[in-house]
């Protein structure tokens, strides 16, 4: 069972995240890391290959620093990595990102499963997995909190507010997983040392046969005109219980149309 797991390098949410002058994510002034939600995808991939055999390839698209994201995946236990980097990619939207990912996956050689996280912790659109599935012509089992591989199928459970759906797709398939699926491992020191010897293949747009005119900020299908900082959180309303606390609470909730 060979798996490609797509991992995004994002600015650390603990840092002071912001935007650059061209309204793109500021990646210069905040340390980057493997998007935390993608750790669940890496863990899911490792669990499958540990049980079934096969290789895990970690794939990222991003600037030079983004190699840290696949390095973390290698430390956790992935076997090899691919880093697609090209100046022309800067500012790419989800459509372009999915194109590059899809072409990179073809180049690696079609795996049995392509795994994704639920959403990146910066862009957070949660659309890239579906787009990649579409581009590869593969069935998609997205946003699942369980995952089983058996008899040539992947089966996962997608929980929503009103129902739980069980999704089955034949392999090869695209899967994205939530943070409920597992507890990602911390790399061991042995893993850290071993990762230094694992191969990381660098690819450019040229290597993938992707035309620079299809990607990048100038070719994004939408344009970010302006950004404003989120206003500081306002202090909550304090209700003092003077015998009628319950009533006041209900009034407050009703006023907010919450009940």
């Amino acid at each position, binding site marked *: 069972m060979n798996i490609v797991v797509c991992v995004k390098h994002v600015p650390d949410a603990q840092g002071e995240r912001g935007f650059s002058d061209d309204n793109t994510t500021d990646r210069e002034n905040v340390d980057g890391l493997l998007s935390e939600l993608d750790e669940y995808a890496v863990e899911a991939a490792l669990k499958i290959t540990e049980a079934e055999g096969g290789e895990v390839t970690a794939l990222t698209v991003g600037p030079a620093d983004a190699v840290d994201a696949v390095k973390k995946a290698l430390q956790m236990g992935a076997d090899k990595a691919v880093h697609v980097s090209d100046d022309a990619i800067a500012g790419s939207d989800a459509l372009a990102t999915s194109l590059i990912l899809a072409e990179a996956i073809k180049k690696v050689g079609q795996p049995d499963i392509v795994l994704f996280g639920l959403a990146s912790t910066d862009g957070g659109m949660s659309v890239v997995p579906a787009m990649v599935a579409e581009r590869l012509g593969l069935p998609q089992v997205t946003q699942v909190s369980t995952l089983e591989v058996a008899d040539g199928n992947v089966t996962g459970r997608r929980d929503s507010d009103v129902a739980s759906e069980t999704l089955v797709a034949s392999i090869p398939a695209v899967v994205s997983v939530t943070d409920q699926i597992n507890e990602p*491992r911390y790399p061991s020191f042995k893993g850290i*040392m071993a990762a230094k010897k694992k191969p990381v293949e660098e690819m450019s747009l040229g290597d993938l046969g992707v035309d620079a005119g299809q990607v990048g900020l100038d070719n994004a299908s939408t344009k970010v005109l302006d950004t404003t900082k989120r206003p500081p959180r306002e202090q909550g309303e304090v209700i003092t219980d003077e015998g009628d606390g319950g009533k006041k609470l209900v009034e407050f909730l009703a006023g907010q149309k919450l009940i």
Partner: protein
Amino acid sequence: MNTSFLAADNLTDEYADLQKMVRDFSQKVVAPVSAEHDKNHTFPYEVVKGMAEMGLFGLPFPEEYGGMDGDYFALCLALEELAKVDQSVAITLEAGVGLGAMPIFRFGNEEQKTEWLPQLASGEALGGFGLTEAGAGSDASGTKTTAREDGDEWVINGSKQFITNSGTDITKLVTVTAVTGESQTSDGRTKKEISTIIVPTSTPGFTAEPAYDKVGWNASDTHPLSFDDVRVPKANLLGERGRGYANFLRILDEGRIAIAALAVGAAQGCVDESVKYAKERQAFGQNIGAHQAIQFKIARMEARAHAARSAYYNAAALMLAGKPFKKAASVAKMVASEAAMDNARDATQVHGGYGFMNEYTVSRHYRDSKILEIGEGTTEVQLMLIARELGL
């Protein structure tokens, strides 16, 4: 010119990655449960399990014994990161590796190493080291616990005091020092022959008495031990007979570097908490961090932590290079434990009344740091050793 000596902001990749990983673990896994375990005096089994899975208990041991093929400095980095948020967790690792497993690795024969090290290095089991007794602390010659030969066995009687990791559910052994005979010195005095013996905790007659009610390190496991006709095979002798004391001194020398690393973590944890608080807390119309008195207090704390870190990095570098490191280790242990104690006091002051509330990290450091000036050789003992190294 070769400038690749160890420096705090210039760590090579694998050290830096380990440091980052343990820092992350400390913040996400350790910190959220620290106050609770401290309050309830409970051993953090779930945290220890996580550390075991990351291979922290195997850091300085070779792979053939289930280790991580790292080194002692890697262990120190992990201890520093853990101690920033929780000294109890850090001392559990320090004692587990430095006092539980290391004596077996250094002085054990092949059978002892293959039997015990894989369990200890994986963190599945913990080991303790029992030297201190009611009448023997700084001065180990006061040891009264005896081990008498009887056929193929040692029969151990006596008691030990303040032994770390000796009574957890996963403790499998305690290595103890015991008097195994007497010898005559050249000037005609009788001298105790002290040896070290591995005692599996399942041996009848071995009892870990109820845990102490301590000032700090509440989530670390410390017990008095009693030995009542405890019979273990002769083969459990660790290292040469009569070399118990000498062996143990070597272990303490390197252990001091580890304790120094732990103390630096505590000192730095105090700085980090204080910087954060000084930027938030308002008094007289501004952040308290805008008052120069607070700035200088925190700057001095940073200087202490920085200097102490340099001291332990230096001692570790000497040790790994195979150079004499006794004096450097004592200096590091002393300045780092004093830095921790001083910083804990100042950090509590920066936090005002909140700093006196037990749930605050700095208040825990305030209670936890004192023992750093006492355990594994008191400050006075370090001064004695430094003076001796100076030929005094």
